[in-house]
């Protein structure tokens, strides 16, 4: 089952309910309970409500054909609960202050030192890793939760998709920082351009995808998890604003990473089943990798293409404007001349409409056509590869049941 971005968004909200200090504490959030998000159903494997430092975490696995499929696990961490002073302290001490291991809680009796939420987040993750050693684990969270999720993903070399998270680069180990140099594509931290709170801490991890939601700068609205909207397939909707072209390109790259990891899993599954790759299995993997690469290149190219198209179109508009300006200036000088005489005078000086507008326009229009053709050939290549894969899966029933 494919876990969608909408699912991560929903799970990042559900985990807040694990907090017993939450006004409407909900006993439904415990191990064994089932949650449905859209078309996908999940079973809760484990929850932790740490009353010493305020951390809440939840691990879930998808339910496929009525059975829990622990080959995929999602660990979600909760963000700040404003009625929990411990969360506010974690924000100050760990997120802003950069204290990785411990948190000092002042009280009338003195100061108590407890494990930081980053530490207990990692402990929770380690317990899950131990219990499900062959699972593909992805972390998620919102706000403080996403800060913890990014931290845990980087330290364990897992994938992450989350929202509005401050960046934890400052508290990462040297090993995690090293891994991130080549693998930051595995982490996706969706950030709202107007969200001052979540955008704190820079982007040392490289996880950030900054999106202009055209929402202004009110941090209370822009920090909300509910501001994110998703399409029919559960993918995040990013508007076609000029300011989002960069985001679209980065997402195309990150999605390619995710596809390749997915393929590695399928490959492992296929290898473990028979001890080697059959001819069809090998073709399937090669084609699927090719498909992943072409599709993401196509997406990235389309984002680039529309910027380029806009530049060309602006150039054409600019050329026309230059010609019109020139004409009006000429008119204002030679008020006794007819229109033809004005144009002849301009031509004598080397400025004809053909040179200034028509020929550049023809030049740009040809470039525009070439670019569009390139886009179309990517699309048809992707289509051909997909058709090839489908045909293969149809004719090879064994392969189909392995991937199923």
């Amino acid at each position, binding site marked *: 089952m494919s876990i969608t971005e909408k699912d991560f968004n929903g799970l*990042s*909200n559900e985990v*807040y309910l694990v907090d017993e200090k939450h006004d*409407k504490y*909900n006993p439904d959030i415990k191990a064994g*309970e089932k949650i449905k998000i859209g078309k996908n159903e999940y079973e809760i494997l484990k929850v932790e409500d740490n009353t010493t430092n305020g951390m809440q975490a939840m691990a879930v696995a998808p339910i496929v054909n009525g059975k829990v499929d622990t080959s995929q696990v999602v660990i979600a961490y909760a963000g700040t609960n404003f009625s929990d002073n411990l969360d506010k302290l974690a924000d100050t001490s760990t997120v802003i202050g950069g204290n990785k291991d411990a948190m000092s809680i002042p009280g009338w009796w003195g100061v108590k030192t407890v494990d930081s939420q980053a530490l207990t987040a990692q402990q929770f993750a380690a317990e899950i890793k131990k219990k499900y050693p062959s699972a593909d684990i992805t972390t998620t969270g*919102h706000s403080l939760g996403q800060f913890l999720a990014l931290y845990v993903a980087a330290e364990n070399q897992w994938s992450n998709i989350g929202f509005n998270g401050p960046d934890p680069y400052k508290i990462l180990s040297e090993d995690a920082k090293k891994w991130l140099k080549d693998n930051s594509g595995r982490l996706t931290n969706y950030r709202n351009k107007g969200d001052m709170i979540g955008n704190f801490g820079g982007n040392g991890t490289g996880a950030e995808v900054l999106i202009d939601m055209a929402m202004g700068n009110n941090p209370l609205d822009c920090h909300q998890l509910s501001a994110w909207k998703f399409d029919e397939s559960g993918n995040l909707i990013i508007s076609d604003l000029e300011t989002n072209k960069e985001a679209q390109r980065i997402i195309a790259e990150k999605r390619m990473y995710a596809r390749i990891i997915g393929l590695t899993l399928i490959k492992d599954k296929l290898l473990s089943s028979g001890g080697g790759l059959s001819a069809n299995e090998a073709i399937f993997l090669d084609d699927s990798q090719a498909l992943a690469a072409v599709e993401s290149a196509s997406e990235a190219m389309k984002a680039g293409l529309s910027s380029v198209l806009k530049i060309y179109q602006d150039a054409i508009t600019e050329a026309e404007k230059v010609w019109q300006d020139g004409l009006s200036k000429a008119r204002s000088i030679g008020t006794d001349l007819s229109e033809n005489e004005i144009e002849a005078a301009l031509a004598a000086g080397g400025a004809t409409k053909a040179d200034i507008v028509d020929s550049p326009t023809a030049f740009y229009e040809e470039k525009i056509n070439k670019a569009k053709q390139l886009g179309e050939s990517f699309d048809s290549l992707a289509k051909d590869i997909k058709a090839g894969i489908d045909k293969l899966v149809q004719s090879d029933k064994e392969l189909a049941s392995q991937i199923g």
Partner: protein
Amino acid sequence: MKKKRWITAFVVFLVVVGIGVGGKMYMENKKAKEIHEAEKLSVPVLKNTFEGIKSVEFKATDYNQMTGFYTMVVEMTDKKDQSVQFHFSYIIGEEEIGAYSVKDEDIQKEGQTTTTVHVIYSDKVEEEL
């Protein structure tokens, strides 16, 4: 003279406390209204998610300021008079509910309810929707 000063001070004190209490009551009233409104808006969405609903009783609703989601705990009764209590998440304006806990698939059957549903809000007001 001294006594008069005390009385004035006391009256001022009462007025200030009155405004404070009144203010708090105003905010709580406003919050209760918003919750009632959110519950009301979620009913058509519930009807578009589950079939065979006879009645819905809102037990508790909370708004998470951080996430912008409402979490509502309801007791839903179907046309066979079977009841199930579960929670779901809802964002105002959305046409689908966010997530819901699966407690009894026999009662929580996905589909549409086109008939009128008896609604009891968390503030005890009742309505047919």
